[in-house]
């Protein structure tokens, strides 16, 4: 095992993908000469050249759409949309073309496209740059939605995504890029069908994904000091959801808190809560709780931003309420 940053893990995944398969190329805003907004693609232009590391103009709809076309044309494009905030401009291409072409064409065409984007808040970049819209994407039939939370997943999920015949969206939490972690090198391609138990426990299930995983783990550590053993689940794949692993955990703990950085109303946490109710109602000792963001455009100042987002202490409080 080596210790690397999440950013380096993404870069390692990109390099391997580009080395393995000549059909793979990376395109997006400033992935090349700038070195990537989050430096994920730094050095790749020098190594792979401008044909395979393509800087695009600011035109999200078209370069995502071009990724769809290139995938239809036999390539394996990795499109980087700088952040989920700008992906709104490409949502028509994503929903109406990428996700739909296979079905609309009666199965004649498929779109092996991988789209990566940074998501999430926590860096004081204010209302227009702090969205967490993975939940919206998870609503779309025909695509896979991945949320790597560890360095192993940051690298491995990208490689796994490139094996898929249909569009895969990878949400990298912007806050994680500088995080260091142990890369499990024996996992060249990680599984992208299962949630993972990141910490076993028996008193309550903390169910989350992406950047919030680390907050849930921090909460679990704190709870352990109070004698509460929380099981922490990392969903990893929002679509298709691995409800089996969730239900197994909840059937054991009888209590669940879902943590999601999206605004509470209409969050993906609601879906998880609803499915737990549907699948394990009679096993529940209390209603499934949610710790989400406050319903406010994320404000710039640190104290307000922190107050708006899920935090370990809010998770701890939610657990205490559930148990109390």
């Amino acid at each position: 095992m080596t210790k690397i940053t999440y950013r380096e893990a993404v870069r390692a995944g990109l390099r391997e993908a580009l080395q393995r398969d000549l059909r793979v190329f990376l395109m997006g805003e400033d992935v090349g000469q700038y070195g990537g907004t989050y430096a994920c693609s730094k050095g790749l232009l020098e190594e792979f050249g401008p044909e395979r590391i393509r800087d695009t103009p600011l035109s999200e709809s078209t370069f995502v759409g071009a990724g769809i076309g290139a995938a239809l044309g036999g390539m394996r494009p990795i499109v980087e949309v700088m952040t989920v905030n700008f992906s709104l401009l490409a949502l028509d291409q994503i929903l109406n073309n990428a996700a739909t072409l296979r079905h609309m064409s009666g199965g004649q065409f498929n779109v092996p496209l991988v789209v990566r984007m940074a998501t999430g808040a926590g860096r004081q970049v204010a209302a227009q740059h702090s969205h967490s819209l993975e939940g919206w994407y998870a609503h779309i039939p025909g695509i896979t939605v991945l949320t790597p939370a560890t360095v192993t997943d940051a690298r491995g999920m990208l490689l796994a995504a490139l094996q898929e015949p249909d569009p895969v969206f990878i949400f990298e939490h912007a806050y994680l890029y500088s995080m260091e972690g142990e890369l499990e090198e024996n996992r060249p391609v990680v599984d992208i069908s299962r949630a993972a138990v990141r910490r076993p426990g028996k008193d309550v299930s903390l169910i989350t994904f992406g950047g919030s995983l680390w907050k849930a783990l921090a909460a679990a550590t704190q709870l352990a000091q109070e004698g509460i053993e929380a099981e922490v689940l990392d969903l990893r794949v929002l679509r298709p959801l691995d409800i089996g692993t969730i239900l197994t955990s909840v059937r054991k703990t009888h209590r669940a808190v879902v943590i999601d950085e999206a605004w509470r109303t209409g969050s993906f946490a609601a879906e998880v809560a609803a499915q737990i109710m549907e699948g394990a109602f009679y096993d529940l000792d209390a209603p499934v709780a949610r710790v989400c963001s406050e319903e406010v455009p994320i404000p710039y100042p640190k104290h307000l931003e922190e107050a708006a987002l899920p935090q370990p202490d809010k998770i701890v409080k939610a657990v205490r309420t559930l148990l109390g």
Partner: protein
Amino acid sequence: MSAVRNREHGLELLRHMLRIRRFEERAAELYQLGKIHGFLHLYIGEEAVAAGSIPSFTNEDAIVATYREHGHALVRGTSMNQLMAELYGKAAGCARGRGGSMHFFDASRRFYGGLAIVAGGLPVAVGLALADKMHGRKRVTGCYFGDGAVAEGEFHESLNLAALWKLPVLFLCENNLYAMGTALARHQSQPDIAAKAKAYAMGADTVDGMDVLAVETATGRAVELVRNGNGPYFLEYRTYRFRAHSMYDAELYRTKDEVNEWKRRDPIATFEQTLRQARLLRDEDFQQIEAAIATEIEEAVAFAEAAPWEPIEDLNKDVCTDVRRTT
């Protein structure tokens, strides 16, 4: 001036146009009879564009079209049986019936739709061309869209990207002077569409879209320019739709006179005249073509009528391939 090469060539172009016209006339009837549903956008009046341009593309080239794509698919060679079955929504349709009128697809002919979000096909076409360029294949992607699409942001983004990267895509604007009920001058501050290509340093021509020979010549030339690695090119076909925008349109936005004025330039009638004047068409040729088409259409209707519906149990098919998932 473009001329008819020979009798065979002339009859072929005429046949293409007539096939579209008759197919669509029948489709309109079938719609009234409740055999076809949803949106149905007829191409009648614009046949010279598809008939004159599609044959310029080789089998290896790709076509991206809109919801008004019956003509394009017909000329491209997808069988009328499959197209009619698609209009019926039958499993034997060219998209297994999933798409209907707006969503014709044919992988075997590199026909990528049938895309019904206005301008939504342009980025896809740019990407198809990018794949060709990266593969070093000398293929061309032809991308059809209407004048209304010119106003959308994706038009702008796509032309820029294609020109910037010198991609082998031919942009084909079917300017029928209306986006639904909005006349060109009411949606474009600069109604000279071909002139817009300059903003992207892209070559462009305006073509008489009612003249199948003019369409053929201009498109043939443009396809070869693009194929030879000169980057994208732009064609604006000036044409007109004789029918309503869709089956729901009361046509409040234009006068009967205007429509009739354009009908005098009916691409089929005028080309028929051209052929007759050149003594390349005899009455019996015409009758023969019409008869063959009528037979083809009735066979297609019979085929569609008899074709089975896709079973409801297959509803969730073709959403994704992955065996991992159930939804």
